[in-house]
């Protein structure tokens, strides 16, 4: 079932602030299609949890409308909405066994005891919880609790599954594993899912599409490729992964993309986004792994020269910081150092990039 937010805003009264209120969610438009896995990604306090709670019904939007399967649900309380939430703290009922926790949703629906038992057993089997059925929640590990929370949420066959940073309490290894498990469960049941995280790797690996948020507003909605390689603005480019920004002037558009002046050299970016005017200023974003480093030869006209300031050898890659006389060092990553060789601190290098790897953006950070 689809979920649609139409210009949804949420304002909280907050007497501790001088203005007396805080806009946690600001005119958010979002459409999640049936069976899709969408992630809300953004820094702490950007309104992810609030958005999720508006969809589940725990917060009422101050303005705007929420639709689930095309039906406006603004006035439906959470217990009447066909959504299930996996809470960050798991919120497992401490006075019930694993089995009772998992079956609680069906029980509330008044299903016959036998059916509840059967269905609970089935779901616990799928989730690998069968051996733990009689345990109390305080006898479970973090990963097991997480699975109980997930099982409890999916047993009702909700139209929409909501996750609020469900993995933040787990250690790194378990996190990788659970991430795949969540994706597997979601795909096998085909449940429309909205997932909140502030971990970009997590977002990239599980999502069909990512919604990048900042200050209560949606910065970009797109596939992992789009938000990483074709970011809508500087905030998105910077928040997801590392990036070098090169400010350019005198932009001109062509078939191949955008050409502009960078410190006297004409450079080309293969794609662009945002409000850039012909003849005006822009910013060209290049990811560190797309920058090519070559020994300084003196002859070839490269767009930038510099000196290696820092080289960190990580085995698979070498990370460089290059002093090119700019106000920030340029970041570059080179792969497969065994074959490609590597530079040492103090070496002079010249930098280039293929136009396809460069993306032009409007100069201001956030529109």
């Amino acid at each position, binding site marked *: 079932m689809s979920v649609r937010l139409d210009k949804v805003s949420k304002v909280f009264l907050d007497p501790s602030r001088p203005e*007396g209120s805080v806009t946690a969610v600001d005119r958010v438009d979002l459409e999640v299609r049936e069976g899709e896995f969408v992630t809300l990604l953004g820094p702490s306090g950007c309104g992810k949890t609030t958005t999720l709670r508006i969809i*589940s019904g725990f917060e009422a939007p101050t303005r705007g409308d929420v639709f689930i399967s095309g039906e406006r649900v603004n006035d439906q309380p*959470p*217990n*009447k909405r066909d959504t299930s939430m996996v809470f960050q703290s798991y*919120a497992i009922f*401490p006075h019930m066994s694993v089995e009772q926790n998992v079956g609680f949703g069906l029980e*509330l629906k008044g299903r016959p005891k036998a059916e509840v038992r059967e269905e609970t057993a089935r779901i616990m089997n799928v989730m690998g919880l069968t051996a733990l059925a009689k345990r109390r929640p305080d006898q479970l590990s973090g990963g097991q609790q997480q699975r109980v929370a997930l099982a409890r949420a999916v047993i009702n066959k909700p139209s929409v599954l909501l996750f609020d940073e469900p993995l933040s309490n787990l250690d790194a290894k378990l996190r990788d594993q659970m991430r795949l498990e969540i994706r597997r469960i979601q795909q096998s049941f085909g449940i429309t899912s909205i997932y909140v995280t502030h971990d970009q790797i997590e977002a990239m690996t599980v999502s069909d599409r990512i919604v990048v948020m900042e200050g209560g507003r949606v910065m970009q909605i797109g596939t992992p490729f789009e938000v990483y390689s074709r970011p809508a603005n500087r905030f998105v480019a910077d928040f997801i992964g590392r990036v070098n920004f090169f400010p350019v002037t005198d932009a001109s558009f062509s078939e191949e993309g955008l050409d502009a002046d960078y410190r006297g050299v004409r450079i080309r970016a293969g794609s662009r986004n945002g409000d850039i005017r012909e003849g005006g200023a822009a910013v060209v974003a290049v990811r560190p792994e797309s920058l090519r480093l070559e020994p300084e030869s003196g002859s070839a006209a490269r767009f930038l020269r510099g000196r290696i300031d820092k080289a960190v050898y990580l085995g698979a890659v070498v990370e460089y910081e290059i002093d090119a006389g700019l106000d920030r060092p340029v970041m570059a990553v080179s792969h497969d150092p065994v074959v490609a060789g590597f530079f040492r601190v103090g070496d002079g290098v010249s930098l280039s990039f293929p136009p396809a790897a460069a993306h032009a953006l409007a100069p201001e950070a956030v529109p």
Partner: protein
Amino acid sequence: MTDRAIGASLGEIRRLVRDPLLAFVVAAVLAALAVFILYPLASVIIVSLRPDGRWTLEIFRHVVSNPYLLQGFRNSILMGVLTAVIGTGIGFLFAFAVTRADVPFKRILHAVAIIPIVSPPFIGALAIIMLFGNNGFITWNLLRIRNFPIYGFTGLMIAQAVTFFPVAYLTLRGVLESINPTLEDAALDLGGSRFRVFRRVTLPLAMPGIASSMLVLFIETLADFGNPLILAGSRFPILSVQAYLQITGMYDLPTGAALSVLLLVPSVTAWVIQKYWVSRKRYVTITGKPTISSVKIVSPAVRSLIFAACLAVTAFILLIYASILWGALAKVWGSDNTPTLRHFLYVFGVGFKAVRDTLTIAGLSTPASGLLGMVIAFLVIRKSFPGRKFMEFTSMLSFAVPGTVIGIGYILAFNKPPLVLTGTLLILLLNFVFRYVPVGIESGVAILQQIDPAIEEAAVDLGADARTTFSRVTLPMIVPAYFSGLVFAFVRAMTAISAAIFLVSSRWNLMTVQIMAQVESGRLGAAAAFSVILVLIIFGAIFLIRALLKARYGRYGGSMLKF
């Protein structure tokens, strides 16, 4: 009010209108608090200011010009301050010994520090008379001293220190437990000497707890009635007893009321300081998991010293209980020590009505008070409605109001229409319910704050409505806390005297009041036998509730009820 604030309370009102059950409960609780807590208090203050229909300060002028009454005020404050300091000192010693010093027999020390909390608060005074009084075992039987000056300051000081240090112990143990010992280890590691680490790290971290404990002890000592009634004597008058004597001996209600107002002022002041200032200064929450302590903060010599001091206090407390037990079994205390059961026979014969009445009153009032406490805790923590702050303040106020004041308030407020209750069972029940409601509220608040609201939201999310969520999720989670709150409320109801002594009648009497009467007429054996039975009943009840909780809720329930 700003527009926004008005908007917010409009929102609250709208929510109430949409939820009539909530609106009804809120209104009923607020009304009950007003009638059974504020109205009696107001009555006391009004009678002291308007003894015969016109406003005047005459009564207070009379009190202030009477050196004997004024002496009572000074003595009360003095005892309050000294007990706060000494009691907190001993409490800290025990808490430090148990949590930090790694002394032997920790469990026994803990048990010894707990026993006085679950005993009648005047058992110390009774035992002191039996040990050091005119026929005292130590002063007379052993040392042959006649008229050892135990009545007055010395005796009362000892009795109150013994009675109230356990309260400090419980608070400070929680505080010390929650200070991560690795902080001390870190300071030692930085090269601090043990004493410096104690002074610069441990003590400052425990300071808010110490301050809070002192204020609580000050309040409880001011309100103490049983110990001074037995021990203070006429040369060392104490305010709470004076107020009682003004009313029961001289039938002077206005003066009694004025004295109790004098009692009320410092006590409520201390409470407000503790509630709104000191308790906010806590560096640490009391709940944290105790980390395994490496306990290097105490050197072996200091450990022995601490242990010796704890042993001395322990020995004295055991002596108190031994003498009570022995006194209950001796034919005539001090002169004829042949064992006899006649005091117990007396309790189960002539005195049994008081036992039955006490059990009835405590048995009825405790569950009601616990339930009210849970409801208030739930409303205050989980709901927002107009009057929430007022509800919180008023319901907790009983803790700060000395029993004497509230007792006088009840006879003033409920001896005339519209509510004539004096002499009935109901007045005692109401008094007990509202007086001990803070106990239930505190345990309710503690548990609700530990329960992640997301757990209740999870139930709603799965399709439960408000009532199902409360009954299937919230209630089962707070029931263990309800019962552990009940234990304390029951103990306090069983051992109550300061307010109840004004409200008993020939129809409804209490064991505590009986014990006082026996002491006053010199029948220490009967008093001791009553006390033994009282303590046994309380212990029995505690074990019963514990066993029930364990059986019903397993580990989850058993762990809730710890002392």
